[in-house]
């Protein structure tokens, strides 16, 4: 089934063409008047399809990615059921048979740890993101820039680490292909959205402690997630960062990816990032998880109670900071950007200037060499011809 879905999805995305654009609309808590919970529906409509991103802080912060083959497919939410203890079936796409592919990513935990002197790591009590209280996203919603920000602090904060700080997830949706301005200047298409994870002002609990974010990806039966680390010689858009990591959802027959989460191996320690604010970012191994995801109400609402049995669950930890780095300790700011989307992730290509400089720089001495050789030959011929035969 997944293979078929994959083919259908690819056909869908390919049919729209490379230079397409989408009409993007954002809707906050559709059909619900309260702002006590956050559910943001981002709908990107193309000529023959529509993509749905459902961001929510119900349970742990999570996003649901759904591709449909109908431009008029709509999100339906049964709010009373969604907020009840058994939310299965509370969120669906109408018409249900237009769904080609669906997937989800949940941000479950934030770890904090220090390097312990004899080899090993000392972990502080984990922040469970499903036990955070999140501010209303409504007032951060910008319908022209297509951005929204979900900000939260732990419901109980005995240590006072969050007294002056918070966690935030900043969402940016795109109508067309392009490149984000601030570093890491990720390339995006109309089939993707950017998410920026921000830790601001949170007091570290240890001298030189580091953070790690845990995220879990849910794939419907058949498809599986794979972590791909790719090194590129090209760091012109993200100076001095050569590694790009992608968490790809692939159908078992191993054709092109169905969806992706992609990021550069860097986080930044400043709201207006520059190269020197770079914080090393490393991904641990991708682990298959079984059992249910506690607190992932939105996923249970969409995928049903059989989430644990019918879907593949994989967990990844992304840690920020290296042995040398104490950037967070000084700046108290960390921002990490990822791109989420459907199909093949966008790939950087050489800047034309690099190619033209290389061509001119290499070509000129060669041209000079040829020209010079011709001149020398000509000069020699003339020299010989000056000698008139003696008669």
């Amino acid at each position: 089934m997944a293979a078929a879905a994959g083919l259908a999805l690819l056909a869908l995305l390919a049919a729209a063409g490379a230079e397409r654009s989408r009409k993007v609309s954002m809707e906050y808590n559709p059909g619900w008047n309260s702002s006590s919970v956050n559910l943001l529906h981002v709908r990107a409509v193309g000529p023959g399809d529509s993509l749905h991103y459902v961001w929510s802080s119900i349970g742990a912060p999570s996003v649901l990615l759904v591709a449909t083959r109908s431009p008029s497919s709509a999100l339906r939410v049964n709010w009373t059921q969604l907020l009840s203890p058994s939310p299965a079936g509370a969120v669906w796409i109408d018409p249900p048979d237009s769904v080609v592919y669906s997937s989800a990513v949940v941000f479950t935990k934030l770890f904090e740890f220090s390097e312990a002197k004899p080899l090993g790591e000392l972990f502080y009590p984990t922040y469970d993101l499903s036990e955070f209280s999140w501010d209303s996203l409504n007032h951060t919603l910008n319908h022209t820039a297509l951005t929204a920000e979900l900000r939260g602090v732990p419901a109980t904060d005995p240590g006072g680490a969050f007294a002056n700080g918070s966690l935030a997830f900043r969402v940016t949706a795109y109508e067309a292909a392009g490149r984000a301005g601030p570093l890491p200047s990720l390339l995006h298409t109309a089939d993707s959205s950017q998410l920026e994870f921000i830790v601001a002002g949170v007091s570290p609990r240890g001298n030189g402690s580091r953070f790690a974010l845990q995220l879990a990806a849910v794939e419907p039966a058949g498809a599986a997630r794979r972590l791909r680390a790719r090194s590129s010689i090209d760091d012109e858009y993200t100076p001095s960062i050569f590694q790009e990591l992608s968490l790809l959802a692939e159908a078992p027959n191993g054709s092109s990816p169905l969806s992706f989460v992609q990021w550069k191996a860097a986080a930044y320690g400043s709201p207006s990032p520059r190269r020197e604010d770079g914080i090393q970012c490393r991904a641990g191994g991708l682990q298959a998880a079984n059992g249910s995801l506690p607190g992932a109400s939105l996923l249970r609402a969409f995928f049903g109670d059989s989430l644990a049995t019918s879907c593949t669950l994989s967990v990844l930890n992304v840690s920020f900071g290296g042995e040398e780095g104490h950037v967070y300790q000084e700046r108290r700011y960390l921002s990490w950007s990822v791109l989420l989307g459907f199909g093949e992730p966008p790939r950087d290509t050489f800047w034309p200037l690099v190619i033209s400089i290389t061509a001119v720089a290499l070509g000129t001495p060669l041209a000079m060499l040829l020209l010079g050789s011709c001149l020398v030959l000509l000069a020699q011929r003339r020299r010989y011809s000056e000698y008139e035969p003696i008669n």
Partner: protein
Amino acid sequence: MAEEQRALLGAEGGDGPAGPAGPPGPPRALPAACDPRRLPHRLLVLALMCFLGFGSYFCYDNPAALQTQVQRDMKVNTAQFMALYAWYSWPNVVLCFFGGFLIDRVFGIRLGTVIFSIFVCAGQVVFALGALFNTFWLMEVGRFIFGIGGESLAVAQNTYAVSWFKGKELNLVFGLQLSMARIGSTVNMNIMGWIYSRVQDLLGYAGPSTLGLALLIGGVTCVFSLSCALILAYLDRRAERLLCKEQGKTGEVIKLTDVKDFSLSLWLIFVICVCYYAAVFPFIGLGKVFFIEKFRFSPQEASAINSIVYIISAPMSPVFGLLVDKVGKNIIWVLCAVVTTLASHIMLAFTFWNPWIAMCLLGVAYSLLACALWPMVAFVVPEHQLGTAYGFMQSIQNLGLAVIAIAAGMILDTRGYLFLEVFFSACVCLSLLAVVMLYFVNHLTAPSSLLLLFLNPGPQKCAEIAAWPCGKAGIL
């Protein structure tokens, strides 16, 4: 032994007036180590001469060895960091013309050397204080003072060598001094990171004061070199007294009006020089972090690979010097060196191949170029203009290094390493273009000077050229 004595006594000139306290003839009762005419004493002087420059070479590349730490502790971007190298070069844009004059006419070799050593020490101390007080502009001032002393000290070092070892050992002495300089740079690259982490362990934290203390400890090498300068001044004075030897002179004559007579060939050599060195020294300045970030090297391994250019050039320079002397054809060697450098930069830019290959190639090419390029000036300039030509060449070389260093830092911050390497490759290409043009210019305008470029100039000429006082990046 007799030849050595002749060489040494020959330098006094027949009519040197005897010092008031010194007897006209050398005393016979001195032990070997104290007799300026005997080999052991001259070896002692040679050792002092070699260590004279050690401190300045060690401290010159302190920023490169501690790039991560400097940028983190002082909170500066790469362009500001590279300004530390630029500030070293700025004073030398002018001083190259006056170093020789100051030594010959104003201070004399002994006082001059001590003064330049004091400048080097003071510069390093101010540099370290700048870090201690967390004021970056003070660090830049320190590098400026250091630059005033450093390059002139290299000239003084060569003048001492000529004064004591004029004759057949001179090339060997230059070779040893060069090797010592390279050892200074290599030791610095590999030890400063360790010193920093020791200081960090001692203080319990990393910050500007850690950096300042580490740099002060590095400054001990400068104090050591200063003491060498003092002992050398004493020994030189003593030798003058005992042997009625004259004080060493650079013999450098610089007339700026000569510049208008410089031929097209000489200008092309200047272009080769500026573009080539601009693609080597600023690259080494940024190299350590490049190998860490692009090739995922550990800091120790990155230090090692970044110093490989110096390590290779220490033994290869004398070998290549000999080879170029024997074979001639300088322009072909320069062409080979420039093409090899281009290949190594392109490898570093566009591949993830093991960078040891590219860096070893760069080391070999750099050594070859230094041996083949600098003597070429003597072929295209009349002898009386040689001083001006070399002074001018070093001056614009320093200007080029300063400008390119800052430009490289800015490019790295905004465009990344790929673009930086493409930029360096473009510099090397410009240099390559100049080599090709030089070849044809000589071919077309004056076939006779073409012959000069291809012929072996003879050992005497080589020694004469090699004796010419040059700065850090120069012939040595």
